[in-house]
């Protein structure tokens, strides 16, 4: 009972705002440390690939941003589900704050994929199952953001966006499966981006470190964005008034 009470206490924007403020530097710092370590491993420890030479190093950014773009979508849908189930304002704010970062990662995944594809397969874009799904994932993000932005009533926008995110999350596996099916049927370029299990341990370590960096970065950025959303939405409340007064 007590823990439940505590949870709801932190679920109120007024108490979460300063807490998030204290957490952001730690996550940002962790992101920087992990990124430095990951880049070091990626560029200096991991050996040159026998077939792809140096261009394979794109993997250290491509795979982490792809993972994050999918992971963030699920987290966003989960926040939306929590918000719809328990009617907590904070969950919707978190869901909204994650969407732009997730969309950015999806875009970066496509961008780095294209830059990798050009020297490796000789073309900027391949209708490969993974790339196609990533493109559709980007569309899903854009749909959620467009819906949230188009609805003037914030509460309705939150709830509609959350519902769409959940619908999308249910559909993501189906979409992925259908795209793989389509891809094998048409014997298109089927390229394995993640390499065989014999992948050097250093490569795996670099990818994991970069993924952690992306993860920490996403948390820091989404918390910062959530703080802005809180201020915007609660601007007429007493605590924001006090905060603005004391900030002088």
């Amino acid at each position, binding site marked *: 009972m007590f823990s439940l009470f505590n949870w709801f206490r932190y679920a109120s924007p007024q108490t979460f705002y300063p807490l998030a403020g204290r957490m952001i530097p730690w996550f940002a710092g962790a992101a920087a440390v992990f990124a430095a370590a990951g880049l070091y491993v990626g*560029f*200096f420890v*991991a*050996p*040159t690939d026998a077939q792809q*030479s*140096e*261009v394979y*190093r*794109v993997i250290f*950014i*491509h795979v982490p*941003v792809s993972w994050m773009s999918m992971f963030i979508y699920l987290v966003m849908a989960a926040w939306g589900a929590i918000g719809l189930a328990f009617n907590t304002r904070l969950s919707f704010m978190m869901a909204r704050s994650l969407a*732009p*970062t997730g969309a*950015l990662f999806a*875009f*970066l995944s496509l*961008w*780095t994929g294209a*830059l*990798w594809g*050009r*020297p490796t397969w000789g073309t900027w874009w391949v209708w490969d199952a993974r790339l196609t799904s990533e493109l559709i994932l980007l569309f899903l993000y854009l749909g959620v953001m467009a819906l949230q932005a188009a609805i003037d009533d914030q509460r309705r926008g939150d709830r509609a966006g959350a519902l769409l995110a959940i619908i999308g999350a249910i559909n993501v596996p189906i979409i992925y499966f259908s795209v793989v099916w389509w891809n094998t049927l048409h014997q298109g370029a089927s390229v394995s981006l993640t390499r065989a299990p014999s992948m050097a341990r250093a490569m795996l370590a670099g990818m994991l470190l970069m993924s952690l960096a992306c993860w920490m*970065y996403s948390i820091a*950025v989404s918390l*910062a*964005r959530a*703080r*802005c959303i809180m*201020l*915007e939405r609660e*601007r007429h409340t007493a605590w*924001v*008034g006090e*905060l*603005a*007064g004391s*900030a*002088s």
Partner: protein
Amino acid sequence: MNWGSPAEFFAMGGYAFYVWGSFGVCMIAVVIETILLFRRRTNLLLQLKSESSGNP
């Protein structure tokens, strides 16, 4: 160590454009997102301050 010299490092075995294009754009995206967030926050705080001083 993979690289004999800084020049070799930046050349990336002839794939500099692709490798640095990937990492560079990601870096730029991260920096832009951070700057935008900072600007959003400072603008917001300024606005709130003028609101709270306008009608105390």
